């Protein structure tokens, strides 16, 4: 019990005093997971919309693949990304392993299927006649897609939140492709594991608390946007 209290006090001490290392770690987590979420949103929303609005052979199979991808184990993603980007791998010449960019790639692989899947579900739930109506009013195909996206913006924001939540809290892939390098690829989750290994439980708890606050803040902002626009 003391430990939990110590941890929470330590967390506030670290936040209030603005411990430079903790701030760097927090900003890095935010930057990496934010970039990954942004890229995943671009991929996921367009892919999800495309699959939702078109009919083609093998579609059911593809949707099953996407839905499976929503639950991709981060360590498996980490392993495959590592194999691809290490020096002897197919993309080895880029020198990506143990860089923030590698972490963005891995996290994108994790978040993109989540966002695709939620987008797909959201777009399919729109009334089918809406599409015909929009087209009947003389909209071009591009305008139609845009209108449908705006119509589905609330669940689309849910998709973004789910993607972000998935990657900011993820550790398996981050530690494998990032390597937990101090000041370079050390993010909140990997730092928490390391501090636990060092027996610095209060610091570990503090980092955990910061992670929770961060996830909450981002989700709060997105929810505010979602609910505000929804009125």
């Amino acid at each position, binding site marked *: 019990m003391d430990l939990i209290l110590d941890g929470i006090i330590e967390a506030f001490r670290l936040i209030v005093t603005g411990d430079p290392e903790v701030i760097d770690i927090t900003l890095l987590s935010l930057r990496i997971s934010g970039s990954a979420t942004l890229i995943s949103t671009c991929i996921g929303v367009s892919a999800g919309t495309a699959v939702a609005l078109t009919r083609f052979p093998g579609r059911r199979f593809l949707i099953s693949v996407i839905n499976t991808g929503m639950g991709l184990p981060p360590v498996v993603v980490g392993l495959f990304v590592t194999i691809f980007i*290490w020096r002897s791998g197919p993309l080895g010449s*880029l020198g990506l392993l143990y860089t923030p960019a590698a972490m963005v790639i891995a996290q994108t692989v994790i978040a993109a299927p989540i966002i695709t899947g939620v987008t797909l579900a959201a777009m399919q739930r729109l009334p089918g006649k809406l599409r015909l109506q929009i087209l009947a009013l003389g909209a071009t195909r*591009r305008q139609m897609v845009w209108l449908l996206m705006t119509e589905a913006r609330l669940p689309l924001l849910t998709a973004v939140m789910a993607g972000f939540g998935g990657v900011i809290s993820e550790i398996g892939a981050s530690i494998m492709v990032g390597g937990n390098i101090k000041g370079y690829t050390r993010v909140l989750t990997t730092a928490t594991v390391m501090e636990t290994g060092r027996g610095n439980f209060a610091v570990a708890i503090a980092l955990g608390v910061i992670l929770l606050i961060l996830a909450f803040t981002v989700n709060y902002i997105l929810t505010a946007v979602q609910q505000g626009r929804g009125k």
Partner: protein
Amino acid sequence: MRRSLTMLLIGFVLSFMAMQGVTAGSRDIIFATTTSTQDTGLLDELIPIFEKKTGYRVKTIAVGSGQAMAMGERGEADVLLVHSPEAEEKFMKRGFGVNRLIVMHNDFVIIGPANDPAGIRSMKKAGDAFKKIAATKSLFISRGDKSGTHVKEQKLWKEAGVDPERQTWYQQTGLGMGQSIAVANEKLGYTLSDRATYLSLKGKIDLVILSGGDRSLLNIYHVIQVNPKKFSGVNAAGAKAFSNFLVAPLTQKMIGAFGAKKYGAALFFPDAKTPPTPLGGGPLMEH
């Protein structure tokens, strides 16, 4: 709409690659090492000095000695700091490494609950202590990760003539030293640890040193540069600079002083000049 998204995406990827182009390359050294050197905080003290001095960026990957050498065998690391002498010799013989230099040593200790259910306290021979743990079926927590500590532990089991695999009292964590000690501490089991990691955790755990000081418990760390002739991607110059740094007199002095203030005893004993006398200079049995 879709085209602009695609463009945005391509822009993103390109910008990341550009970022990469600037940062990656010959200024980066991938340094694979054991968890004990990271968990004790030694590297946090040494590496910034090296980086400042030379302009290299050291990417420390803290894994077990086994994994560190596996990375070396694939050319995925430039320089290694490991403590698994027999495996190291094999690694060198197969031509994966060059210039293996001794850096420092400490020793392994058998730690366990203070009430010592297996009754190994102050046993001189580590093998005998292991035999007794097996005979009393007392819980033993193993790293189980092919790290230097795990390899040493397996050797001690062999000495004791015990095959602990698949025994209910023998549990493998697959985790680093610090985490494995935490597991042993929770479950009140015995475990083998390097003295440095134990000392750095001492104030936070209930386990105590029960047996140590045996010759066979010597724990020696070597630095090895990965053979650049075998792998073209290896940063040979960086590896050499880092290896030289570790054995330089000033660094050696810092290694010897590290932790003395905080933990009341030195965690590592520098060896670059003088080869280690068995457990020389080390506090052998301190509780």
